[in-house]
């Protein structure tokens, strides 16, 4: 009998190697079709009428002129008169026409009357937000007053970051096609198994009637979990027109409404002893998450400072709907905490690495991981050589500074089901209703199946991106790799055990004496006694093996957890930043990311996740902001021109180091989507300060 548990280090043929993603060639050559590329026979294009006002009541809607426009086949009112608009760009009417241009032109002929209402679109200080300021209850731990009184050193500062968007390469949207009462949706979604139900509810059809297809998708980062109003409207248009309809968001609409990350600003005070022991934290924070209050942010981040007082106020604004953004809330909290702690180190005149190490116990269970990672990161960025107290004394207008940041994330696997079929011709299929957002999920599944069955990677066909496959969780919170790894490992092990059970009698041994290695089924310790995989499968006659596997529902946590999967990782990043003190232009020169994520299935795609996270972090640290205009209530930069993202030349050198081997591998597979983006954004703002202070700001 083959064992579920992951093979020992010496016995892995594929797991942990550097394997290129399987769909790389078809993606880079454009052969694979994204939702955006879907082109069904007779398909129409949908476009939407958006509210120009940030808050208003819809008084009336007249679609007559639009209906008469050339090419128009269906018009769907998405919000009835009388309903309230809560952000500019909110969808009011959808139109389907023969071409995109016709649909766009027709949408402009829809006449909507609004009654404008007062709005707020800026995350102003609570005092200026009137009744839109919603304070949360104060939280305290320990005795902050006493701790601050006794602190030998205190430091104060204000830190924060703006509302940003997701900027997925592929916009939100879908194509929909009816066949009687059955609906097929090609959706750019993170949730293949899950969104069908939402479509069904919106359209009042049985959930089983909806099939969702997402063979590949161009990024979601947390913004693509729902059917969305435009998804349902798209299906309604298709029903009315009796033809397939595709409706993808335009880039401006995408940036206006398809997701925003809440802002946060905080006035922070930190107290410490002269030797660097951190004793007290207080923060007064505010920010906006649109019209929702959210909870109280869990400040300080990672370091559990013994005495704390925290007050948070949510400012309700008409910026558009907030959606989970890669590692929800962590980047903002990380930025504020790390900036404040680095200011503290500066005031104490201590090297921040030293100060972080001194207080590492406050990070709890992961403290050993962090300590090892701090050491590794310091070595890779040459901290000892490059670090200097604040204020770069080097001549010239370019000043440099180093920064440091710690982060954590859960990343336990989600519920997932996998079906494995071994066919008599020797071919193998693994099927899951999962999706590959571009992270390498498909490749990871293939690696695990091939490893388990002792086959080469090419021998396994991976079926994902179709809701007809066994249910698998949505890809959020770094839950996918854990979920699909465990279910795939179990399904393929179960299938293999069935095969071994069938082969054992003919080889005259017990099942548990057989193994599948190198494309053969053979007796353990006696490789010559056995047969090729193909020969073995041929013995199945006409009946393929069908086995299933599930992810266990509870994920063990913590560094000592041992199972196929667990959760709880730590990462350390360090950066070297240069600033031109005459212009304020900041450039990231080098960023080192050291990360653990348990057992790594594919080192290459794991590293790619970290590179991607770092790049995303650099983007929001240096450039991104959803710029809102208080006068008009609109987003002023819903384009890729003034919504600034880094280009290759802006990113600097990235160095990624994955913590692997003993101490990490035994914890099983843990998710990696979120962690690497958390620290990168925290690395720059105060580094700039560090470089500027005493460096001679112009």
């Amino acid at each position, binding site marked *: 009998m083959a064992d579920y548990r992951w093979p020992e280090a010496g016995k892995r043929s594929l797991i942990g190697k550097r394997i290129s993603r399987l769909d790389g060639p078809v993606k880079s050559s454009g052969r694979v079709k994204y939702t955006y590329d879907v082109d069904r026979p007779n398909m129409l294009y949908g476009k939407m009428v958006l509210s120009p006002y940030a808050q208003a009541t819809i008084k009336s809607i007249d679609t007559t002129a639009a209906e008469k426009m050339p090419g128009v086949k269906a018009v769907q009112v998405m919000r009835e008169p009388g309903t309230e608009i809560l952000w500019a760009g909110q969808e009011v009417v959808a139109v389907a026409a023969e071409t995109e*241009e016709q649909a*766009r*032109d027709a949408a*402009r002929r829809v006449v909507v009357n609004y009654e404008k209402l007062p709005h707020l679109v800026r995350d102003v200080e609570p005092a200026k937000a009137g009744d839109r300021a919603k304070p949360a209850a104060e939280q305290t731990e320990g005795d902050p007053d006493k701790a601050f009184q006794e602190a030998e050193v205190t430091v104060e500062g204000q830190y924060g970051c703006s509302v940003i968007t997701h900027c997925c390469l592929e916009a939100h949207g879908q194509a929909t096609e009816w066949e009687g009462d059955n609906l097929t949706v090609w959706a750019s979604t993170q949730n293949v198994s899950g969104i069908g139900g939402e479509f069904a509810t919106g359209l009042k059809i049985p959930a089983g009637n909806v099939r969702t297809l997402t063979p590949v998708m161009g990024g979601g980062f947390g913004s693509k979990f729902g059917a969305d109003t435009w998804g349902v409207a798209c299906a309604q248009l298709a029903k009315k027109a009796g033809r397939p309809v595709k409706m993808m968001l335009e880039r401006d609409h995408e940036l206006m409404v398809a997701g925003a990350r809440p802002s946060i600003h905080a006035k922070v005070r930190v107290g410490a002893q002269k030797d660097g022991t951190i004793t007290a934290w207080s923060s007064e924070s505010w920010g906006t998450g649109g019209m929702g209050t959210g909870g109280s942010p869990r400040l300080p981040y990672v370091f559990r400072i013994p005495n704390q007082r925290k007050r948070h106020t949510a400012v309700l604004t008409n910026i558009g709907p907030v959606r989970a953004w890669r590692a929800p809330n962590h980047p903002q909290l990380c930025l504020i905490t790390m900036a404040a702690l680095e200011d503290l180190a500066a005031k104490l005149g201590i090297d921040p690495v030293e100060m972080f190490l001194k207080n590492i116990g406050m990070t709890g269970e992961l403290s050993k991981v962090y300590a090892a990672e701090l050491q590794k990161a310091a070595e890779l960025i040459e901290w000892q050589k490059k670090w200097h107290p604040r204020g770069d004394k080097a001549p010239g207008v*370019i000043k440099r500074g180093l920064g440091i940041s710690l982060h954590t994330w859960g990343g336990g696997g989600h519920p997932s089901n996998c079906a494995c079929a071994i066919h008599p011709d020797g071919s193998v299929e693994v099927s899951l209703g999962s999706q590959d957002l571009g992270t390498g999920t498909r490749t990871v599944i293939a690696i695990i199946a091939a490893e388990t069955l002792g086959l080469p990677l090419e021998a396994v066909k991976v079926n994902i991106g179709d809701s007809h496959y066994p249910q698998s969780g949505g890809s959020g919170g770094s839950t996918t790799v854990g979920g699909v790894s465990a279910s795939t490992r179990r399904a393929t092990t179960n299938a293999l055990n069935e095969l071994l059970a069938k082969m054992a009698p003919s080889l005259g041994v017990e099942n548990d004496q057989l193994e599948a290695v190198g494309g053969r089924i053979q007796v353990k310790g006696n490789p010559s006694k056995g047969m090729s995989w193909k020969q073995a499968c041929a013995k199945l006659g006409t009946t393929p093996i069908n086995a299933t596997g599930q992810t266990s529902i509870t994920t063990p946590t913590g560094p000592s957890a041992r199972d196929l999967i667990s959760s709880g990782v730590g990462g350390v990043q360090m950066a070297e930043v*240069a*600033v*031109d003190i*005459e*212009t*304020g*232009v*900041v*450039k990231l020169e080098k960023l080192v990311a050291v990360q653990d994520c348990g057992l790594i299935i594919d080192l290459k795609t794991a590293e790619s996740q970290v590179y991607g996270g770092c790049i995303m972090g650099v983007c929001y640290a*240096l*450039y991104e902001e959803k*710029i809102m*205009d*208080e*006068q*008009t209530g*609109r987003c*002023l*930069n819903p*384009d890729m*021109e*003034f919504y*600034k993202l*880094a*280009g*290759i*030349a*802006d990113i600097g050198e990235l160095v990624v180091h994955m913590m692997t081997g003993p101490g990490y591998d035994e914890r099983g597979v843990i998710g990696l989507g979120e962690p690497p983006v958390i620290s990168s954004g925290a690395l720059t703002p105060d580094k700039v300060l560090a470089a500027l202070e005493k460096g001679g700001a*112009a």
Partner: protein
Amino acid sequence: MQAFEYAHPRSMTEALPLLGSRWGETEILAGGTDLLSLMKNYVVTPKRVVNIKGLRELRGIRGTPEGIYIGALVTLEELRTSQPMHEYPALAQAAAGVTSPQIRNMGTVGGDLCQRPRCWYFRSGFGLLARDESGRSLVPQGENRYHAILGNDGPAYFVNPSSLAPALIALGAKARLDGQNGERYVALAEFFVIPKSDAERENVLQPNEILTHVIIPEGAWELSSATYEVRQKEALDWPLATAAVALKMQAGKVASARIVLGHVAPIPWPAPEAEKSLAGQPINEATAARAGEAAVQGAKPLSGNRYKVQLARVAVKRALLAAARPRSIGAKGGV
């Protein structure tokens, strides 16, 4: 995009009658890198689009006794790489500053000079002068971080987007404009104007004229020139402030100087005070910094763009220092 009639003339004589006599009726299409987005966003909605890419007389860079003729259809990439342009570093550097190869290969000299402002209120449909329903400009109390710090007494607050214009003006270039009644030449320094109403445009071109050539006068190759751009990003982005300078040096001293700021005013902004401050001086940190100071004397920052004053000051200083260095050392923004 609103449906339109598309014309593809093969010669100037065919092209000119196709143009309308009022702005808004017809638009000229060159590389289309700006016009297409304007049309897609319904900021302009022409009834007819006249593609001038078939006009061969508008191509190429040619030396004549009066100077260098640069055809309006010459691309930014040609400008950046062509041999004759190496004599005019300010211009080649300005072209190189547009860091997208796609835009440099499609975008043309004529299009760069005639492109419309990037003011986000204009681009969102509030008109060239960015006014609300009551006629009040949205800029002074709005988001004006990228708007003008000079020449901003109103009603225009946008910045002229052309990176080539300051360099060309510093080099003393003029534009040739062709209409049905023949051609006229306008110094580029006089080509740009600050519109007083939404119906006006940002230059003296008439709706039925085509900008056919830009002419750099003979002798300009003797000038020491440079462009310095302050850019937040290296990847494609708009500069925050730029300066182009062209110096006539005699025995290590400035005999005459032209200094033009870009992206800080509704038109490329000349800096005569800065020019004067350099007369008879050598170029060094001190004189260059003083010129930078003089260039922004009249600046009146808006609520959110005070930082641009410092950037303009530094751009002038660095452009001067770059121009005074021996040739082939480029000046480029960023760190």
